[in-house]
């Protein structure tokens, strides 16, 4: 699996395992990734799409820094270098710099079940660590740059500053929302919507009917963070937040949070709402004040 290719390219390759069949599957990816983890590799480079990213996630979690070279059919995850060349430059960059910082990015994939029913929904499966500056390799001075992790803490602090009495909160998935949720309850869900009232977790990983019932009882606000590299805010991934739910919550009660780098990584493209209801998508479009840190906001466009 790759030995020949490396040899032809003039690289020395250490073979860590042997394939017994011609056919490979996700199981093989998981096995090899786990073996590399055992060998304590510095960087795990994989070629594939969302499916492969999920296999890698299952095998190594956040125990090793990874970068995906995009070659799959579906690439909703944020672990991929922009293209093959960028991946190559990144590899070179990684080998030349010690102690590169890492950041967590999403592993997302199409929801197969929903897809078979004709709905395009992207589900969040977890997080992998990539080199901090890997995906866009923006360049610029690296010194003293506050990390994503710092801003996630800073955003959580701002949310605590704003918490209102007699208002309940529906907090969506994502590593940025998770930093906030974790401080409210250890039983939060990383990938789901959690319901909080007076700072207490009422229900984790709630489904649509849970949320509708919750909304019938409490005045609520919805805290969201964009998912994946394309800045999807609503729709696709979060089927629990149906058009019905959004209408009941109301546009004014939507709070968007994101680290500044996540916003900058969108390259000035708007955040996206893509629910099943085109009229609602239109209504939700416009400028939002996004919380990007403690006492910090960015005004950014949301589009359908």
């Amino acid at each position, binding site marked *: 699996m790759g030995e020949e290719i490396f040899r032809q390219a003039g690289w020395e390759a250490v073979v860590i395992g042997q394939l017994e069949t011609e056919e490979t599957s996700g199981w093989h990816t998981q096995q090899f990734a786990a073996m590399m983890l055992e060998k304590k590799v510095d960087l795990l480079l994989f070629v594939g799409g969302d499916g492969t990213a999920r296999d890698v996630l299952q095998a190594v979690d956040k125990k090793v820094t990874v970068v995906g070279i995009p070659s799959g059919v579906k690439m909703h995850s944020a672990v991929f270098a922009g293209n093959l060349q960028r991946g190559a*430059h990144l590899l070179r960059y990684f080998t030349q710099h010690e102690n590169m910082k890492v950041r967590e990015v999403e592993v997302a994939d199409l929801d197969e079940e929903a897809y078979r029913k004709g709905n395009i929904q992207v589900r969040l499966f977890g997080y992998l660590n990539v080199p901090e500056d890997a995906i*866009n390799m923006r360049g610029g001075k*690296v010194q003293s740059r506050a990390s994503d992790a710092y801003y996630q803490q800073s955003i959580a602090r701002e949310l605590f500053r704003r918490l209102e009495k007699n208002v309940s909160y529906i907090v969506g998935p994502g590593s940025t929302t998770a930093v906030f949720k974790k401080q409210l309850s250890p039983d939060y869900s990383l990938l789901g919507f959690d319901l909080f009232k007076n700072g207490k977790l009422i229900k984790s990983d709630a489904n649509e009917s849970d949320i509708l019932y919750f909304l019938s009882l409490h005045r609520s606000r919805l805290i969201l963070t964009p998912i994946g590299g394309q800045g999807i805010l609503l729709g696709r991934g979060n089927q629990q937040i149906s058009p019905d739910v959004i209408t009941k919550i109301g546009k004014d009660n939507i709070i968007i949070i994101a680290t*500044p*780098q996540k916003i*900058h990584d969108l390259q000035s493209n708007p955040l996206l709402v893509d629910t099943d209801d085109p009229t609602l998508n239109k209504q939700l479009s*416009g400028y939002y004040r996004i919380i990007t840190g403690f006492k910090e906001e*960015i*005004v950014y466009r949301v589009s359908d």
Partner: protein
Amino acid sequence: MKNNIKLRKFHQAKWDEEVIFELHHPGERGVVPPEVETNVSQETGDAKAIIAETMQRETPPALPEVGQMRVLKHYLRLSQHTLGADINIDIGQGTCTMKYNPKINEAFVKSPKSSELHPLQDESTVQGALEIMHRLDLAFREISGMDYFSFQPSSGSDAIFTMASMVHKYLEVQGKADQKDEIITTIFSHPSDYAAVSVKGFKVIMLYHDPETGRPSVEALKSALSERTAALFITNPEDTGIFNAEIKEFTRLTHEAGALCCYDQANANGILGITRAKEANFDMCFFNLHKTFASPHGAGGPASGALGVKSELVDFLPVPLIDFDGNKYSLNYDLKNSIGKVRSFYGVIPAVIRAYAWVMSLGAEGLEEVAKVAVLNNNYILEKIKKIHGASAPFAEGQHRIEQVRYSWQQLFEETGITIEDIAYRMADFGFHLWSSHHPFIVPQPFTIEPTESYSKQELDEYLLALEQIVKEARENPELVKTSPHNSVTHRYDETWLDDPEKWAISWRSYQKKHPEGIK
């Protein structure tokens, strides 16, 4: 002419010079002060007794003891390690307005008439210095349309902080300080507009640009304005060199929300004599004398942020003001709502003197010509850089820019793997300085060029030639660029140190503490 322009065969001096503390030899002296004469010591008594006991140190400061000639050599050698504004074609540090600082102005500053002044002198004995400040104030009133200028803030960020303090005080007087706690700025305004108002305790809301225009829309502003808005702090043109033509609508809406409009004109080099803060309905503004007004940056100061306000806000300025009764200049500390002091004494007088000399030497027509030439130079460079394969000028396609442009090497990077850092290092091999722009990092692989009015077309062409050469090398011999600089004072260093509190050291004492073994 063009045919004569070539890349020079540059090689910088490399002295491998020690840090001054390493030159320490106990007993060596640079200057031996004369013995105190008997009649002086009789007059003063025990000098030590004059200093309060709590102020007396028990051990002398650990200063290096070095002979005078060695000190001179040390600093001359270090000076040969730099690529400062007086030696390179310093157009690669956009937003900083690295222009020519006329040397004749140093003569005024070095003259004992100014250098021997003491800040505690009686005002009747410093009438000349006060007159210069007053007359520069009058010039700035013309340049901006504001009604009064203070030279108290000693940098651009200090001026922003002073403006934020005045906004706060103004709201306090109105009884609205608790309600109005948000300041709106833009993501491409200078980041000090965000930083300094945060330090003052305001919440900051940054308007993002629309990708097509490169500047924030009126709609974006509207969604940020509320009864909580205290002020708008904005740069125009922004750090992209794009001018916000809707600025009057911005100030109108901001005023409508009961907030003040504060104009960051740290860099006003492209609009002198063209647009003014007053006509755009700003309530206050400031100019960096060390940028537009030809005082040197001095490697981080001393500098000056000349702060102007409309008459209804004069009362809030830091003290002292300089009053003139037609006959005599005096210092006025009696302001009802003054925010107090923002620095000791009267501001950075040398910067004021240089700016005054510069303004007076040019006159109104001259200042306008500065702006026009700066804009012309910038748009010449813009057209040339757009033709360099791999470089681009994001946003506002097909439009002219004012005094600078934030460019991107993203395409070159994707094709060759060469980054802005690589190019910046390689530029040093040709004797040029290029930097990667300040945060936030929105434009990928960014660089910002600001040619000002100072440089000739030949010099601009020489700089462009170096950029073109490096782009050629990036394709033909990327290793040459990756391993640069080759002709500079140093090769590459490990930049991660600058990000690591365990390793960085900004003083000799801290260096010794963190690196007791020294470093190789």
